[in-house]
Every structure is written in C-alpha cells, then in structure tokens.
C-alpha cells in the first residue's frame, strides 16, 4: 500500500498503483495515472476510459475484453475494433492501464 498526491490531495493506492478507494477518482487522478503510466491521453484514449467507467457504473463490473473491443470498433471504426489497437493505445494493456486510469477496481481472476 502507498499513497499518491494529486492536486494536493493524498490518495491511497495499492502496490500496483490502483486506487484503494474508488471514490477518490476524478479527472485529475486519471490524468495523474496516465502520466505515471506514460500515456499521452488523446480522445481515443478517453473513449476507452469513458466506456470503462460507464460500463462499470451500469453493471458494476469491468467489461470482458471482447466487449471493450467491439465497443471501440463501434466508436472509432472497425479497423480499431481489435486487441492490437487497444495495445497501441495502452501498451501496458487495457486491464492494467486503462482500468487504472478509469479508476476501476484492480482486475482479478486468473493470471
């Protein structure tokens, strides 16, 4: 466990840098995470983050990758509806980086 300081506020994060309290999320936090992960956020990046947040709000779960991929394809064009494109946006992987920036719980399950 550790802490980060964003816009003057001290926020708790776990070893992998995920939020300990999801309520701490805000745009500043998102941007902070993006910077730490080395991601320059474009509109396309935000599409992913927004979709993740919306989906999580509606279903209380992160979408399966196939659903994320399909959604991105719908939003950004069929040539971008694939995992490869997701990894171009988020080289650290959608689970690790996009979920972190979106302020979702740290992905679990089989590793």
């Amino acid at each position, binding site marked *: 466990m550790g802490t980060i300081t964003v816009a003057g506020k001290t926020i708790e994060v776990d070893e992998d840098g995920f*939020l*300990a*309290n*999801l309520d701490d999320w805000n745009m500043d936090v998102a941007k902070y995470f993006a910077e730490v992960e*080395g*991601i320059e956020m474009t509109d396309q990046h935000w599409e992913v983050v927004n979709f993740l947040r919306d989906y999580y709000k509606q*279903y*209380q*779960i*992160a979408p399966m990758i196939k659903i994320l991929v399909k959604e991105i394809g719908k939003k950004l064009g069929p040539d971008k509806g694939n995992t490869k494109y997701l990894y171009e946006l988020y*080289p650290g992987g959608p689970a690790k980086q996009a979920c972190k920036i979106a302020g979702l*719980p*740290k992905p*679990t*399950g*089989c590793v």
Partner: protein
Amino acid sequence: MADKPKRITDLGSPDYKKFLPPVIAKNYGKWKYHEQLSKGTMKHVSETGDELYTVRIATPRLVSTDYIREMCDISEKYSGGYLRWTTRHNIEFFPAKDQMDALVADLKKRGHLVGGIGYGISNVVHTQGWIHCHTPATDASGVVKAVMDELHEYFTTKSLPARVRIALACCLNMCGAVHCSDIAILGIHRLPPKVNEATLANQCEIPTTIASCPTGAISPNPATKTVKIKAERCMYCGNCYTMCPSLPIADGAGDGISIYVGGKVSNARGPARMSKLVIPFLPNNPPRWPEVVKAVKHLVEVYAKDAKKHERMGEWIERIGWERFFKVTGIPFTYQHIDDFTFARDTFRMTPTFKWE
C-alpha cells in the same frame, strides 16, 4: 517507458530444432523401439540402426541457477551439451553408450537420484504452495519433499505393479493433473471466507464475485454494498477469493490436506479417469506432514501388495471394488466421500451388486 522503440516481441518459443542432440535430429521420426535398461536408463533404437541412450534423474523442480549450471556442466561432459526436462520435472541426459556408466556413477556421486523410468513412482507434479501463491491451503514443495523422502526408493530401485503418478495441488484450483492422478494430494480449506467489509466495495466486482461461487452461496449485501456468504452452502473452494481479495479464506487450523486416488490420464487398457476422494482431511503439520506421508505410503504399500502387474491404482480398485478398498486400507468411509455436487447422482450405486467382505 513508451520511448523504447526497438523492443522485440512475439518471438514465441525458440526453435526446438536448435536444441536437439544430433542423434535425435538425425533420427527424428524414425525411432523403432525402446528398451528399459534400468530404473533410470533406457535405449531407443532407430530404423537407421542408431541408438539413443537416456539417463534420467529427479529434480526438486524448484531449482537455483547454480543447480541448472551444474546440470549444464554434466551435459557438456557426458551428453554433448544437450539435456532435456521431462513433463514431470525430471532431467534427461543423452550419453553415448560408452559414457552411460560413467554418467550414472557421476550423478550418483553428486547425490542425484537416477531413476523414474517404468513401473514405479516418478517425480511428483506439484504447484507453488507457500512459495509463491495467494490461495494455498498447504505448502507444495515441502509436502512433496516429505513424501518423497519416504518413497524415493520407488523412484530409484523398487518396482511397483504399474506407474504410480503422485501429484499435489495446494488448493482447489488444482494446478497440475491432480484430478487425474493415481495419488493426488490436495490442499483444502474447510472454513468459509471472511468478508472484509472495509475493503470489498473498492476491491471487488460484486456481480463477478457472486457468479464465481459454484454453489450459489454468495448473495449481495445491499446494506453494506458488500456480499453475504451463506456458510452452510459454502464448500470452501476459494474461487470467490480469486475474484475478490476481500474474501480471505486461508485459516491455519481449518486448512489441511485431502487425498484422492485412482485417476490416470493414459488410456492404456481403459480410458483416462479422475481421482476419487479417499481421505477427506489430514492436518497441516509442517515441516514433515507425518500424517500425509504415512497415508500416502500406506496406500502405495497396500496397492503394491495386492495389485496385478500392469494394473494402475484405479484399475486395481475397480477390480476389487471400493468396498474392499476401504476395508483393506482401513480408511473409514464418511459422509464426505459421497458426492453431493451437481452431478452426484451419477456416482450413486444403482445396482444391488457388491462384494461383502
């Protein structure tokens, strides 16, 4: 980090052909027959007449780089710098015929166990346990070491009616082939997870957590935005913990080991089959798990005495009948042995035929 452009990715596995000893490269696909020469050595003969000699030793699977370097050195000395690992964590060297004896002698001198071929006990397929994993109900390497210290002669010198494959998994995820082994040592929890109300909402997806429970023991707890676990429906599989860190299940006193027997994967004589529960619980008793060691040894010995040649443990039991298995092993039959999961009905004995004594 993103400014390292020259990263190489997606190489896949290196080409196996680079690693084949010349005699193997040459006779690839041409092998004609083999002969077991001893418990730790064998000879394969090719259609071309070429011969390949193999010497096998046990490893602890968890090895240091120094260990590997020692093996490399040995391979350089006796085996042209080639060596291989088997699917059960043993190492094989390929000496020329005239180097066989020297290699075997050298290996033994260095304290390695030559063996594992043919009818006996080969290495134990096992998992991480307390070495690396977050869900174990027991250790892996320690139990294996304790068991094999007792049974190592079945690796090196003593024979059994057929192969006896022992495997260990430290939790119900059953990494490995535990569910289809002659003797399976399985770590089990016996108490339901505790709900960490403080962290759950932040760490876990509630729908996924609920869906993870095979017996439907988990329901939402809207009051606290967490979940409730119906203790009497929980069979402690730990799958909810896999999905949700706020449901820790490990418990020093509740956890322990169960033993399953009679599985196999080969289809020789009869189809592959799963292992069946015979000892529902033995305590975790580190460092030597004496109860587990005794139980496994006992099972091997009763089997060794009673089975016919070529009969795997499960085949032997099926021949004598489970009622007699419990009798000859002296293991008590309990409620736990009777299946009560979804497909239980298929395990009920729907015939009045059985043996009496």
